[in-house]
C-alpha cells in the first residue's frame, strides 16, 4: 500500500514526468518547425525587399506621400524594408501557430482555430486602414494645395479635416470588418456626423447669424477681395 507521501507527491510527479516525456517529441518538433519558420521568414524578408527595390517601390511610395508620413511617425525604415519586415513577422506568426498546432495541446488548438477563422478579417481591416491612410494623405494634400491657391486662410485645417474624415471612414469600415461594435459604431458615426452638421447649421444659420457672418468673413474671405480685380494676363 502506498504511503500518503507517495499518493500526494510522488505519484503526481511521476505522472507529470510521464506526460512531459510523452510531450517532449511534440515540443521538439514544434521548436524545429518554429526555427525553420524563423529561417524562412528571414529569407522571405530579404527576397521581398530585393523584389520591391527592383520595382523601385520606394520611389513610388515617396510619390504618394507614404515615405513622408512614415518619417513623420519617426519610422526610419524605407517602405520596402517595412513591407519586408511585415512579411517576416507574418511568416513568423504563421510558423508559431503551426508549431503550437504540432504540439497538439487541446486548449491551444481551440484558441488557434478561432484565431485562424478571425485572421482574414484582421487582414482585410488592415488593408482598409492602409488604403484609407494613403487616400487620406493624398486628398489632404490636394485639398491643402487647392485651398492655398484659392487664398483660403484655413487651408491647413481644411487639409487636416479632409485627411481626418477619410481616416475616420476607414477606421469605421475596418472596425465593422472585424465585428467590433458593428452596428453601434456605424450608428454612432452617423449620429455624430449628422449631429455636427445640424449643430453647425443651427449655430450659423439661426443662433448667431451675425456672429457667423463675422466669423465666415474673417476666416474664409480671400484677402483683397474688396479691391479691384487684377488685369494681369498670365499667358
Amino acid at each position: 500500500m502506498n504511503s500518503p507521501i507517495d499518493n500526494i507527491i510522488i505519484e503526481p510527479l511521476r505522472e507529470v514526468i510521464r506526460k512531459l516525456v510523452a510531450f517532449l517529441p511534440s515540443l521538439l518538433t514544434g521548436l524545429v518547425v518554429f526555427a525553420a519558420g524563423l529561417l524562412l521568414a528571414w529569407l522571405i524578408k530579404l527576397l521581398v525587399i530585393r523584389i520591391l527595390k527592383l520595382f523601385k517601390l520606394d520611389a513610388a511610395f515617396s510619390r504618394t506621400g507614404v515615405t513622408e508620413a512614415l518619417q513623420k511617425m519617426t519610422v526610419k525604415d524605407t517602405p520596402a524594408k517595412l513591407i519586408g519586415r511585415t512579411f517576416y513577422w507574418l511568416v513568423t506568426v504563421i510558423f508559431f501557430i503551426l508549431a503550437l498546432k504540432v504540439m497538439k495541446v487541446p486548449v491551444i488548438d481551440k484558441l488557434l482555430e478561432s484565431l485562424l477563422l478571425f485572421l482574414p478579417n484582421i487582414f482585410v481591416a488592415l488593408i482598409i486602414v492602409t488604403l484609407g491612410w494613403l487616400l487620406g494623405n493624398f486628398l489632404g494634400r490636394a485639398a491643402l494645395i487647392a485651398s492655398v491657391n484659392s487664398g483660403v486662410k484655413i487651408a491647413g485645417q481644411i487639409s487636416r479635416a479632409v485627411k481626418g474624415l477619410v481616416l475616420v471612414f476607414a477606421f469605421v469600415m475596418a472596425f465593422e470588418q472585424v465585428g467590433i461594435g458593428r452596428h453601434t459604431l456605424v450608428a454612432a458615426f452617423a449620429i455624430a456626423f449628422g449631429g455636427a452638421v445640424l449643430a453647425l447649421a443651427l449655430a450659423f444659420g439661426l443662433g448667431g447669424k451675425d456672429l457667423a457672418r463675422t466669423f465666415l468673413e474673417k476666416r474664409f474671405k480671400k484677402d483683397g477681395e474688396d479691391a479691384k480685380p487684377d488685369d494681369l494676363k498670365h499667358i
Partner: protein
Amino acid sequence: MAQDPSVAVASGPTVFADLDEVDILIGIPSYNNAKTIGHVVRAVEAGLTKYFPGRRSVLVNSDGGSTDGTTDVVREASADLDSIMLENRVGGFRKLVTPYHGVPGKGSAFRTVFEIARQLKAKACAVVDSDLRSITPEWIELLVKPVLEEGYDYVSPCYMRHKYDGTITNSIVYPLTRSLYGKRIRQPIGGDFGFSGGLASFYLEKDVWDSDVARFGIDIWMTTTALANGFKICQAFLGAKIHDAKDPGADLSAMLHQVVGSVFDLMEEYAAVWQAVKGSEPVETYGFIYSVGLEPINVNVDRMIEMFRLGVKDLGPFYRTFLPPDILSFLADLARADRKDFAYADAAWVRTVLSFALASHRKAVRREHIIKSLTPLYLGMIASFVIETWDSAAGAVERRLEDLCLAFEREKSYLVERWNP
C-alpha cells in the same frame, strides 16, 4: 442661292476634287468663335490676296463642333478687297470647313490642319487663333514669307504686349525654354505660327495626339519640337495681340499646371538635346518693331504677397520634401519681409523653378501637386517684379527680363548636374 465654289464643307479631312496641291495653307482652329472668326477669315483672305498673288492658297477652319454658327460665319466671310485697294484675286483662294476628330482641344484641331497640309502638299502653312481682334493681313505675310521665300521651317510670333501681359511666359516659359534649347524665342506659346509643309509632316509623325498635347499643350510642343529637332527658326513681329479673354474664371494653378507641365514633359523627351546646349543665341526677327505707351492696369500686389505668405506658411512642409534648404530659408525670410523690401531675387527664382522641374522629373510626389504648389511662389515672384518695374517703361522691363534669362542660363549647370544623379 448657289453655293460658292471656292468653299468646301467636309465631314472629315478631305480636300477639293480639283485641287491636289497648294502653295499656302492657313489653319484656323475654332470652337464657338462666331463673334470674332469673321474678322480673322477676312484678314487671312486679304493677306493672301495682297501678299501672295498668283499663289494657290487654302484656308482650313478646323472646328470642334461649334453650336453658335462659327462655321457659317467662316463660309460667308469675305474680304472687301476694294477697301485695301486690291481689285482682283490673281491666284486661287479656297476655304475648307472641316470638323476635327479625336480628343477635344486645340492640338487635335491642329492635327487636322497638318493632315490637310500633307495631303495638299502645302509648301508653307500658318495657324492663327480664331479669337484674334488685332490680326491684320500683314500677319499672314510675316508668318508665311519667311517659310516660302527664306527657307525657314518655323516662324514664331513676337507681339507688342503690356509689360504685365504674359507673366507666365515672361517669368518661366521664355527664360526656361531659352536656357534649355539655346534660342531666344520670345513668345514660345504665342499661338500664331508659320511653318513649312515638311515640319507639318514631321509633327504628324509624332505619337502625341492622344496626350495633353492634343488638349492644351500644342503651342509649346510645336515650338520645342522645332527647336529640339534642329529646324530652321525665325521670329516675326506681328504688333499688338488683342484677343478675347480665354476664360476669365480660369484657375491660375490649372493654367500653371498645363503650361509648366507641358514644358517639364518636353524636358523629359529632349533631355539629351538640352543638356548639350550652353548659352543662347538670338534668332532672325522679321517685321517692323515698334512700341507704344503703357496703359495703366490694375495689379493687386498686396493680395499676391498675401497669397505668397499663405503658401509659404501652409505648404512649407510640402516644399521641404523637394526644395533645397537655401531656397526654403530664402522663402521664409521673404515671407516676413515688408512690401517695400519684398524682392524675389532672380537666382532664387531660377533655383525655385529648377527645383520644381527636378522634383517633377524624379516624381518624388505626384506631379500635379508639385506644379500646382508653385502658384503662391509664382505670385510672389510676380509681386516682386511688379514692385520693381512699376515705373519702368517697356524697354527697361525687357532689359530686366533679359537679366532673368541670363540668370536661368547661368544656373543651367545646377539642373544638368542633378538631372541624372
